[in-house]
């Protein structure tokens, strides 16, 4: 019976998606949209962990479950979806494509929640894919060229990621001999499998160099979608790695090193790229990339030194929750900002926005700072070689984030994002504020929620102010200069197909020409032959020739030897009697 809550957690969004297809139920569904994650939230908050449920008849045997880690993920994810759903309901109220958005939104939601609950590789992959592909619709929602470009890029990466993921999962499952994620974690996957998995999840996570899709997609998607994309969905990458990789038990030095290196580069490269953006949401996207760099750092460290993972892991979860809430708040805030009709409202919202921005940047005692500090502590248990570098990087990341936030704030004023024409600004403001509040209060609520997992965080130092300050100063300076940069998703498909098309056309032309000439010939030769034979009366000649040949052949044969074969080899005596029946006379 434990199956019911699980299925309802995943199923409610799916049912809503399905129900949206009928016009009659649409209004009701939209009203329900904010509550879609409620079963999942309820499950996460109320259920005893660990909890498992089997549905052997679903897909290839579905195992759903909940443990300490996934519970936390479900909570903040659910929260984000709640908020985003609320926003979406109002944001999309007069949108002509609201239905398609709703369907995609709900399906992505189902996928997101489902993957957190999945306990076996197949269902995990299934939900993961559902989420990824449904999000395509979210990214593409506006249909303007920018969105199309972004969506194309997005789907390209998604497909790539899915393939890598599938391959990795398949390999891992084969090597583990089981589909259960727990078994996968406990098994000894090959380097290849781990690499594929990192690749697959890395795409979702947006770690460089797999990040290209992320900023444009976040920039192009409507506000509520961006919020969940950035707040909830990219965490799926993190969750995936935690769920599948044998972190804490096996060391994968090369992978870890690579991941850490990528993370480090990401943190700062994203800054450099992000500050050049002209779209505030794209800037936020790059901020996400940057933040995920930090996450990658932690993961890499865990891969490098398994022993450290026990310490790193709780921090990772915390960081995920922190970033999810803060970034969600920022995205929704962007929407709220855009929805404000007049300058006073905008100023107010801007101030409200500064709160999660600073939380993200790591104002001391905020969740951002706590997270980083906790991470530093945890990393100390890891590779000694890397440690100094990591500390420096983590500290400086605060500067980077601050700079990005500065750029963001500047941009929402310079080129405010578009909002639907008729909205109720209050309704959109509300979820933003709620998320902001959640984000700010995270350091307080976390110990309650995470219980033992919260220990590293609650014991962390409050952190330093200077990186943030530095960032603010630099940011103001840099903000003077702005660059517009267009993304060039360009012509992925046509480039891929052009050579094939050309070769195919050539080959067909050649074939056609040859076929024509052969056909002409094939028509002409028998015609000439036939007519000549008729004119020359060769049939008559053939008669004579044939007799002559047979005579020659046979007479020759008898002259040479008696090679003739008797007509009847075994003659039945009855037959002879039959044939030689000569009446006596």
């Amino acid at each position, binding site marked *: 019976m434990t199956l019911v809550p699980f299925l309802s957690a995943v199923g409610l969004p799916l049912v809503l998606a399905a129900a949206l297809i009928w016009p009659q139920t649409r209004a009701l569904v939209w009203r329900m949209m904010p509550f879609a994650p409620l079963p999942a939230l309820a499950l996460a908050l109320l259920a005893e962990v660990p909890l498992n449920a089997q549905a052997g008849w*679903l*897909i290839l045997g579905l195992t759903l479950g909940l443990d300490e880690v996934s519970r936390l993920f479900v909570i903040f994810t659910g929260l984000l979806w709640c908020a985003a759903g609320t926003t979406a309901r109002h944001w999309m109220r007069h949108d002509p494509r609201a239905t*398609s958005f709703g369907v995609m939104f709900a399906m992505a939601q189902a996928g997101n929640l489902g993957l957190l609950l999945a306990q076996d590789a197949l*269902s995990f992959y299934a939900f993961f894919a*559902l989420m990824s*592909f449904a999000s395509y619709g979210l990214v593409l929602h506006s249909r303007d060229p920018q969105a199309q470009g972004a969506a194309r890029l997005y789907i390209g990466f998604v497909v790539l990621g899915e393939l*890598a993921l599938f*391959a990795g999962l*398949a390999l891992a499952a084969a090597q583990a001999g089981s589909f259960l994620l727990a078994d996968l974690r406990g098994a000894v996957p090959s380097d290849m499998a781990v690499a594929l998995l990192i690749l697959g999840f890395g795409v979702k996570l947006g770690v460089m160099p797999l990040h290209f899709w992320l900023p444009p997609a976040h920039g192009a998607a409507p506000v509520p979608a961006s919020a969940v994309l950035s707040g909830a969905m990219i965490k799926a990458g993190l969750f995936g790695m935690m769920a599948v990789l044998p972190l804490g038990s096996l060391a994968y030095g090369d992978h870890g090193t690579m991941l850490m290196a990528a993370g480090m580069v990401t943190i700062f490269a994203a800054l450099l790229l992000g500050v050049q953006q002209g779209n505030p949401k794209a800037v936020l996207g790059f901020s996400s990339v940057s933040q995920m760099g930090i996450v990658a750092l932690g993961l890499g460290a865990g891969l490098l030194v398994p022993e450290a993972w026990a310490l790193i892991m709780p921090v990772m979860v915390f960081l995920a929750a922190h970033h999810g809430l803060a970034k969600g708040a920022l995205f929704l805030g962007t929407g709220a900002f855009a929805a404000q009709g007049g300058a006073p409202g905008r100023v107010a919202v801007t101030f409200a926005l500064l709160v999660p921005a600073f939380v993200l940047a790591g104002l001391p005692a905020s969740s951002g700072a706590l997270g980083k500090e906790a991470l530093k502590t945890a990393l100390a248990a890891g590779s000694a070689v890397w440690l100094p570098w990591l500390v420096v990087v983590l500290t400086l990341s605060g500067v980077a984030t601050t700079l990005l936030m500065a750029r963001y704030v500047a941009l929402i004023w310079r080129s405010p994002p578009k909002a639907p024409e008729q909205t109720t600004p209050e309704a959109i403001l509300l979820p933003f504020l709620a998320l902001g509040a959640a984000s700010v209060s995270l350091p307080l609520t976390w110990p309650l929620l995470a219980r033992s997992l919260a220990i590293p965080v609650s014991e962390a130092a409050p952190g330093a102010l200077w990186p943030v300050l530095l960032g603010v100063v630099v940011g103001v300076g840099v903000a003077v200069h702005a660059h517009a940069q267009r993304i060039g998703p360009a012509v992925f498909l046509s480039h891929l197909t052009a050579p*094939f098309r050309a070769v195919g056309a050539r080959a067909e032309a050649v074939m056609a020409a040859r076929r024509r000439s052969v056909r002409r010939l094939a028509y002409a030769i028998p015609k000439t032959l036939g007519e000549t034979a008729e004119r020359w009366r060769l049939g008559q000649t053939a008669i004579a020739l044939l007799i002559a040949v047979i005579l020659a052949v046979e007479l020759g044969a008898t002259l040479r030897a008696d090679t003739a074969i008797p007509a009847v080899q075994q003659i039945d005596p009855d037959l002879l009697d039959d044939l030689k029946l000569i009446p006596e006379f």
Partner: protein
Amino acid sequence: MMDAPLLPLFILLTSLLASPVLFALPERAARLRTAINLGMAALKVMLVAWLSLKVAQGVIYDLRFEVLPGLEFKLQADPLAILFIALSAVLWLITTVYSVGYLEHGPHRARFFGFFSLCVAATVGIAMSGNLFTFLLFYELLTLATYPLVIHCGNAEALRAGRTYLIYTLAGGLVLLLGTLGLWVLAGTTDFVPGGVLTDAAAQNPLAAQLLFVVLIGALGVKAALFPLHAWLPIAMVAPAPVSALLHAVAVVKAGAFGIMRVVYEVFGIETAQALGMTAPLAALAGVTIIYGSLKAITQDDIKKRLAYSTVSQVSYITLGVALASPIAAVGALAHLIHQGLMKITMFMAAGNLAEGLGVKKVSQMDGVGRAMPGTMLAFSLAALGMIGLPPLAGFVSKWYLAQGGLEAGQGWVIALLLGSSLLNAVYFLPMLHRAWFRDGAADAGAPARPRIGWMLAAPPVTTAVLVLVAGGFANAPFSPLEWTRFIVDIEYLE
């Protein structure tokens, strides 16, 4: 329960006998024709259900009739046959509904449905053939029955396509005749026996056995559209939509794929085939076909052509699964036989609806059709995503097993192949979905008048799409295709 040893025959006759009746009906007796069509189709589904139940209980059906000394016409109903029969029976019913709707006012309906029934009879016969000789018989019947369907439109293009089709498939049939004769000469029997009949002969004369393998696979490869024998398939898409649907999903290409299964499993036996060293090349050929079909599909703008090339690619999954010589891959192959059928029939029917309802025949015209025909396009999307291999859709399940099978057989490249293929699938399907759902097309630029298509056109693709979902989503449930394939694989591999 009553025991009916002639049950397989009845199943065959439901469509075989319907055919002459349908021919004889005057053109205007539409209601009666529809009644006969649907009645027979439904009856067949019921009989098949009964048959599967009996077979699952272990009843053995075996009908023989001597044609030449030692050479028998033999019908049998083993689990493998049931798999294929069930597919054809169910999809026949659905496609019949669709065809009735599709051809509501078209010409030559008597002829169409007559041959349609004949085509199904041939398919069922192929499924139940107990030896290669019988198989050959129905295989040729299938060719003949589908030819008039392919050229149903009766225009120059259709006739050209029909001619190509006929030449290809009859040549294939001829080579199959050669192979059958070869088998007859070599083994002294043409029976399908799990584990194969050629073990001794192959040991004595491996070269001849290898040659025979090449000949048989070459013959069947024509219908299974193995590269480079696939050329007829994309051309044959000029047929009316229900015919394409049936051709691609059930009848022709599947007959080829099914034949390959029979030949590898029950003529040669998987071990013998492996020992002859023939499975690896076959797998490689299947791999080439998979990639080639996908690449060609990308470049097509005509929807049905794109689907056709997709079929070329997808059907070779089955061959691949067979050739991998691993039980798990075999499960994948068998499951794909069903799953691909469901998905492809959905897509073709949806494509037919697009053409009927909106006049959309090219990918480049698909902008915004999702809004105009949401049900149809939803079905199409589901099937397409299934083709790509997204869980929990049907296509995923088979791909998963194929991948696992590849690993089990120690053929890691299969994973790469499947991934590459999925990638290419995505490349050619996703743009269609993109256009359909996320682009504002001409369709709703003006008044978004919904095209009027009857329920007979709308319902079938949706139904099959749901089946796609169910087949994937409930893959592990009892009597699901996957479960049944496991049952079969147990038989084939335990022998």
